[in-house]
């Protein structure tokens, strides 16, 4: 076995090396070092994939498998229709077009659907934030708060950086979505959240906080801290 074959085998299945590959690594310091590097990144990968499993999942699976599915689906469909009618009624009575401020609303929905973003500290990396802002043509002069959470998340039109800051006004979420240009500033309030979505060069950002004042204040801080070159 040569070095190239060893690397291919190690990268294809790091945990199942053939005896030939192990012998090769024993006699080749370069491949042995390569193997250790792969093992290290493999451990990082496995840790990263250990996403928390919802409590009671196994029980729900067993319960669902014993329920009459068709009836459940029919009720779910009926309930869905009722909810849709209710939402339509609320939207209709508020005289708001269905597509108004859609990205501000989606931003609120995103935060509401990812509650762990507000309770955990993950990947709090200022450099990653700086790099994300740079993809918008922006420049970070200073951080608008302490970063608690930064993740690249799937959003409506692709991917966006989901960043949570700790600020004197409480937690503020910033979602940076590259590549999508909004025609105007959008604002929304729902479920105890307030949000705005503002177009900037290279995409748009959304700010989500618990109140309109906190959203405005965080945006003011953001303007002081970041030059968007827009």
């Amino acid at each position, binding site marked *: 076995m040569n070095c190239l074959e060893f690397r*291919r085998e190690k*990268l*294809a*299945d*790091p*945990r*199942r090396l053939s005896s030939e590959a192990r012998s090769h690594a024993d006699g080749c310091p370069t491949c042995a070092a390569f193997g250790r*590097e*792969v093992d290290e*990144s*493999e451990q*990082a*990968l*496995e*840790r*990263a*994939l*250990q*996403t928390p*499993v*919802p409590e009671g*999942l*196994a029980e*729900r*699976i*067993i319960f*669902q*498998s014993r329920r009459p*599915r068709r009836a459940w689906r029919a009720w779910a469909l009926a309930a869905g229709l009722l909810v849709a009618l209710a939402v339509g009624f609320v939207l209709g009575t508020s005289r708001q077009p269905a597509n108004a401020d859609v990205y501000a609303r989606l931003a609120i929905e995103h935060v509401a*659907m990812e509650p762990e973003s507000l309770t955990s500290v*993950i*990947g709090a*990396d200022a*450099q*990653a934030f700086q*790099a*994300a802002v*740079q*993809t918008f043509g922006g420049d970070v002069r200073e951080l608008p708060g302490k970063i608690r959470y*930064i*993740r*690249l*998340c*799937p959003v409506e039109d692709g*991917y966006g950086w989901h960043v949570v800051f700790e600020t004197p006004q409480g937690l503020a979420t910033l979602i940076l979505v590259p590549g999508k240009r909004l025609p105007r500033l959008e604002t929304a309030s729902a479920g105890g959240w307030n949000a705005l979505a503002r177009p900037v060069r290279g995409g748009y950002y959304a700010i989500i906080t618990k109140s309109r004042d906190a959203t405005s204040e965080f945006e003011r801080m953001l303007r002081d801290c970041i030059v968007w070159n827009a």
Partner: protein
Amino acid sequence: MRAYSADLYRFAYWLCRDRHAAEDLVQEACLRGWKSWGDLREPAQAKAWLMTIVRNEYARNLSRKRSDPSLDDVDESQLPFAPSSEGGLEAAQLVAMLPLTYREPLLLQAIGGFSCAEIAGMLGTSEGAVMTRLTRARQALRQQYTEAVKRRTVG
């Protein structure tokens, strides 16, 4: 099914990146598995069989939505692309950015613990093709991971 529910959920989650959709996928897959349990010839293969059902269920949903490329439409030569500016992001984010054709075998191996031959059987492709996909996926992740470590060391 109870024994495999965590691995099934994690596999589903990293395919679709949505907690609720992942649970739905697992529920649906387990229901299908439950109904056709008699078709399973070797109980030792139950985990691989259920993960294949999750994968097929996800593919079915994708083709219904048509919002993502189908499992077979991704160009084999298309290497995962991650701008250098994203080097500081975590391994989890890098995995999420891998095209499905690379992500899928990687998840089956890292979460399910399957060999290249077993994955080939589950995906209906050759062992060589699986090895190539896994090699490319890990090359991309390793490159980004090394850059991130370097950046942290320098910083």
